């Protein structure tokens, strides 16, 4: 089975760990931060990105021999934009509350550099099955980071952990009132934009310690 040999495994696992799109390739940060206020938003966003990245990689890889090099950017953009429109409409139809919360950031998946970057760097050079695995690995790597960031932002910023459901989200656990009575306080800053930057900065630092990557300047 070609799908399950060690090379394929590497294509999936590398971007999750040692070649993570967010913390090591520094792609796709734009939308990564805005959706990390709550865990359920991050999970839905991850699913959207998994869908778009896997399908765009497969589609572009299938038509890679027919795309003239000069107009490839436009073709890539139109394929990606169509897929994102599908996701946007699906969210509006089935998860209306969530699509209101995510507002423009679903549309901004189009300009998420991970998708263009993987299309350009991988899908246009490899067959569909490998391109699918690459898309899966990279979108999971993206998802891993935004889920970690949103978990900490929500837990310490708002004191809850929310999972996605059909409506406004299902609160899995929230900090009990007795803690507040004992003097515990939420860190309001984490819910605001600076908190997102700082937590992501720290996550990148920790991930690079594990991956052993250094950068000059």
């Amino acid at each position, binding site marked *: 089975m070609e799908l399950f040999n060690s090379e394929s495994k590497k294509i999936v696992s590398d971007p999750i760990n040692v070649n993570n799109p967010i913390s090591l390739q520094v792609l796709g940060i734009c939308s990564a931060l805005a959706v990390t206020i709550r865990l359920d938003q991050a999970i839905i966003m991850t699913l959207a990105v998994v869908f778009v990245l896997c399908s765009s990689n497969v589609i572009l890889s299938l038509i890679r021999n027919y795309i003239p090099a000069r107009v490839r950017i436009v073709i890539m953009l139109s394929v990606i934009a*169509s897929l*994102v*429109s599908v996701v946007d*409409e699906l969210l509006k139809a089935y998860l209306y509350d969530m699509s209101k919360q995510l507002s423009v950031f679903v*549309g901004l998946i*189009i300009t998420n550099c991970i998708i263009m970057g993987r299309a350009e760097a991988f899908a246009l050079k490899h067959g569909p099955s490998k391109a699918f695995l690459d898309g899966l690995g990279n979108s999971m790597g993206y998802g891993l980071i935004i889920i970690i960031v949103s978990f900490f932002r929500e837990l310490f910023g708002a004191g809850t952990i929310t999972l996605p459901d059909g409506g406004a989200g299902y609160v899995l656990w929230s900090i009990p009132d007795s803690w507040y009575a004992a003097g515990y306080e939420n860190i309001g800053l984490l819910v605001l934009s600076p908190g997102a930057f700082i937590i992501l*900065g720290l996550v*990148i630092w920790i991930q690079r310690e594990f991956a052993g990557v250094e*950068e000059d300047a």
Partner: protein
Amino acid sequence: MTGIEHYLSIFTKAVFIENIVLAYFLGLCSFLAISKKIDASVGIGLAVIVVLTITAPINWFLWEFLLDKGALVWISQDFQDTDLGFLKLIVFISVIAAMVQLVEMFMERFSQSLYNSLGIFLPLIAVNCSILGGSLFMVEREYTISETVVYGFGSGVGFFLAIVALASIRYRIRYSNIPPRLRGVGMAMLLTGLLSMAFMAFSGIDL
């Protein structure tokens, strides 16, 4: 609320209070990648101002007369219920890609020096989220055409300000003793967090 104060308020809001980078996280990819050098940051900042000021109003016209629900009534009353809103992402991104190309050709022809300094940054801007984000926010907030122009320009200025500020700080700390694995992007994120905190001090200003 009409008159100059209203527009001034949209402008200051776009530049300082709801800064497109520091409050809405848009355009971060180029923001982090290019802020290593100050002159390159000035270049891309100017390019974003130009492209955002041009594309936001164009997309406004397309939205108002083509895509919005009932926008096609100027052709015939039969289109009262036609809603092409789902096409907005594709239309906006094509307009942006085309405009970037046009601006690039225009600059190459008429201002060689500006073209040389912006050079490689212009094509990059097509996939800069702040440009598409500007158009999408314009739709979501239902701005009028003049508000859109002011908002587009203001957002561009906000991006310019933020990227030049970060580039200057990164230049300043070049020889600081930072833990090796935190260097580069990690440190840039923490600095951006502090910048963003500083910009939060502007919130509450209402003209």
